[in-house]
């Protein structure tokens, strides 16, 4: 159970995470610290590294503010923050599990606009263009993204070598591999949502990017196409048919009792052929592979295959795991923003964190030579590839507003069980999304570059 961390938890825990301080009068500013900040980490070594290299390092160099970090649980940091923000007792630096939550805070005037600071600190130059765009609400910047990742296809090279497989790039290759793996007694694609219900959206979001592609998804996210578009309904139906064949998670029933650690264990043992998951696992996957896990298994990743002739192979559905903003009640703007800038303004520091902990870095512009020598080559390959790729996609938890996002995975479970036809599912999602579009809480999707 200790490894059963949610996707959000892991992604949130990635990299720079959220802010600290105790609830209002329980600490934070009241305890003498200048800037209160709540954070959560997937492990003690990661927390120690972050404290030394970010918090302590900032405090040593800063005359304008001293940051006080209070560590919370990964699993409930978002909810703690929601409650504190709602009660008007948020820490000075407000954590959000991505732009979707930021939009809600911004619309309710719980956080401050950072436009002037963004200009002063030249964040537009520092951040990857899509990340800068995504940090805006109504064309004004309200947050700083401090960790990002993508969905990728994990596999065990030894298993692939044993059966003579190559990472699939097309629909035909993917289906051939799944059929072959099934006939060999393996689970073709590890999947399950036991312990974390929202895990379903990892697979569905990857599937839509593979089968529908970034261009169409962008049209949906910007309301020029609906979620009940034929292409989306066909993709959902295709995924349902693959699940019925037992390709995903070994079948419907097993799907609901399989956990993320179960899949990674199966991947290491050679019982699972592939696993489509997020790069937040880079920081914890060593628990299941190699020396730490007591085996000699290894892992690697490949870009996602295409499941449609209209989609280029190798799409990277992007996700921001942590966005940080300033509380509307915060009184030390300059100092607090200086810390936000400290988190993203130095590629060397960010990549050092990646090398030391495996945690996802902020979406900033880096050069190949910026990576420390001890960086895991798989991580380096990913974070070299994404900035160069024009095939960038969209994850549901980053680009959908809260209610649509909940509908996205909650109701898809009913599609899996056969209680809800794909067409009805898509119509329901379209209705929910239209409603939230009207409320103006849909995150600002970047324009795709893919053909």
């Amino acid at each position, binding site marked *: 159970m200790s490894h059963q961390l949610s996707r959000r938890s892991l992604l949130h825990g990635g990299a720079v995470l959220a802010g600290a301080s105790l609830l209002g009068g329980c600490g934070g500013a009241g305890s003498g610290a200048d800037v209160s900040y709540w954070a959560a980490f997937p492990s003690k070594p990661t927390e120690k590294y972050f404290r030394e290299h970010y918090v302590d390092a900032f405090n040593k160099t800063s005359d304008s503010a001293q940051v006080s970090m209070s560590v919370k649980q990964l699993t409930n940091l978002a909810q703690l923050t929601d409650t504190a923000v*709602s009660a008007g007792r948020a820490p000075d630096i407000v954590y959000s599990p991505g732009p979707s939550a930021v939009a809600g805070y911004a619309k309710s005037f719980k956080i401050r606009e950072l436009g002037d600071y963004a200009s002063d600190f030249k964040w537009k130059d520092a951040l990857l263009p899509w990340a800068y765009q995504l940090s805006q609400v109504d064309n004004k910047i309200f947050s700083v993204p401090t960790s990002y990742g993508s969905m990728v296809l994990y596999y065990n090279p030894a298993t692939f070598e044993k059966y003579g497989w190559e990472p699939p790039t097309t629909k035909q290759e993917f289906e051939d591999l799944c059929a072959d793996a099934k006939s060999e007694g393996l689970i073709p694609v590890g999947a399950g949502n036991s312990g974390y219900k929202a895990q379903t959206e990892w697979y569905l979001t990857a599937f839509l990017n593979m089968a529908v592609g970034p261009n169409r998804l962008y049209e949906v996210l910007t309301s020029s196409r609906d979620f009940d578009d034929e292409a989306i309904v066909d993709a959902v139906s295709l995924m349902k048919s693959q699940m019925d064949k037992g390709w995903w998670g070994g079948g419907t029933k097993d799907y609901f*009792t399989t956990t993320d650690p179960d899949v990674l264990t199966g991947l290491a043992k050679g019982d699972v052929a592939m696993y489509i998951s997020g790069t937040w696992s880079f920081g914890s996957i060593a628990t299941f592979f190699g020396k730490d896990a007591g085996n000699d298994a290894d892992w690697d990743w490949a870009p996602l295959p295409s499941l449609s002739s209209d989609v280029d192979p190798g799409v990277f559905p992007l996700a921001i795991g942590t966005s940080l903003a300033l509380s509307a009640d915060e009184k030390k703007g300059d100092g607090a923003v200086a810390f936000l800038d400290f988190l993203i303004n130095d590629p060397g520091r960010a990549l050092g964190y990646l090398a030391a902990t495996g945690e996802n870095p902020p979406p900033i512009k880096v050069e190949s030579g910026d990576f420390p020598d001890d960086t895991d080559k798989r991580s380096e390959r990913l974070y070299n590839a994404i900035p160069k790729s024009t095939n960038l996609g969209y994850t549901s938890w980053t680009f959908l507003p809260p209610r649509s996002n*909940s509908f996205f995975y*909650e109701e898809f*479970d009913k599609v899996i069980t056969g209680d809800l036809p794909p067409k009805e599912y898509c119509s329901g999602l379209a209705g929910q999304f239209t409603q939230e579009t009207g409320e103006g809480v849909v995150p600002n999707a970047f324009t795709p570059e893919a053909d």
Partner: protein
Amino acid sequence: MTLPALGTRPAPRRRTARASRGRRLAGLLFLLPLFTVNILVIAGPAVMSVFYSFTDWDGLNAPGFVGLDNYVRLAGDDSFRTALRNNLLWTVFFLTVPMGMGLLGAYLLTRIRRGQLLFRLLFFVPYVVATVVSASIWRQLLNPSVGIGGVLGDFGVPWAADINALGDGDLALGAIALINNWQWWGFLMLLFLAAMRSVDPSLYEAARLDGAGRWREFWHITLPGIRPTFVFLFLMTIIWSFLVFDYVYILTQGGPGGATEVLSTLLYRSAFTEQQAGYGSAIGVVLALISATAVTGYLVLRRRAGWDV
């Protein structure tokens, strides 16, 4: 005969009255902290929940009054209907299986002298195990690969390995109820046992002299003798059944596909995941009304039938 002088006798009465007022005041003062806490953490939030149930509050922005919209929406919400049906099934199960097991267990334990303490301990131990621990243990036990089914499958019972109780929408709610019952029935048994011990033994002796069998003893002496406890636990079981959350949330989070959704998990999802605190409050108000109905029913029974706790 000497009459007491006027004005001499009332003095002690005044002192008594003053003392009585003082005692009442002291009592009220002692009650004040608890009353204050009650207002702050129970009555206050309860009133606020009723208020929010008539609003579109999202937890962040100022709530806007929407009248009965949330309640109208509840009536047409499939998830709500499923959750309500599951709560009703849960209630029926817990009013029969654990209550029956508790009664039977307690009655049988009153019949034995040696080893009673051991059995009481054995039956009660699951109750003190943390919910998250017992849920995790049972999740492993019911896992079709490594649990009981998997082991039976290895020993030549292949169909057992195909049963995935928590992954099958038709079985999941029952499986969770059985797991919860494993922890719960021992507690009921202990309460029933304590009540049965207070029944006058001479009644049983008289019944035996009249030739009554075990069943007649149980039906005509034991059950009426423990009626206050029985009725209280019956009432509380109804209330607790509608508040069930922990096992469902830990084991399935309402899945697969909403098959184990109950009102409290739906409330939690609405209020905290979907940021519909107003709608979640309406679900909470419905839950409170169900409990209030159960309590009212009990009070009516108590008044009309003279039952007492």
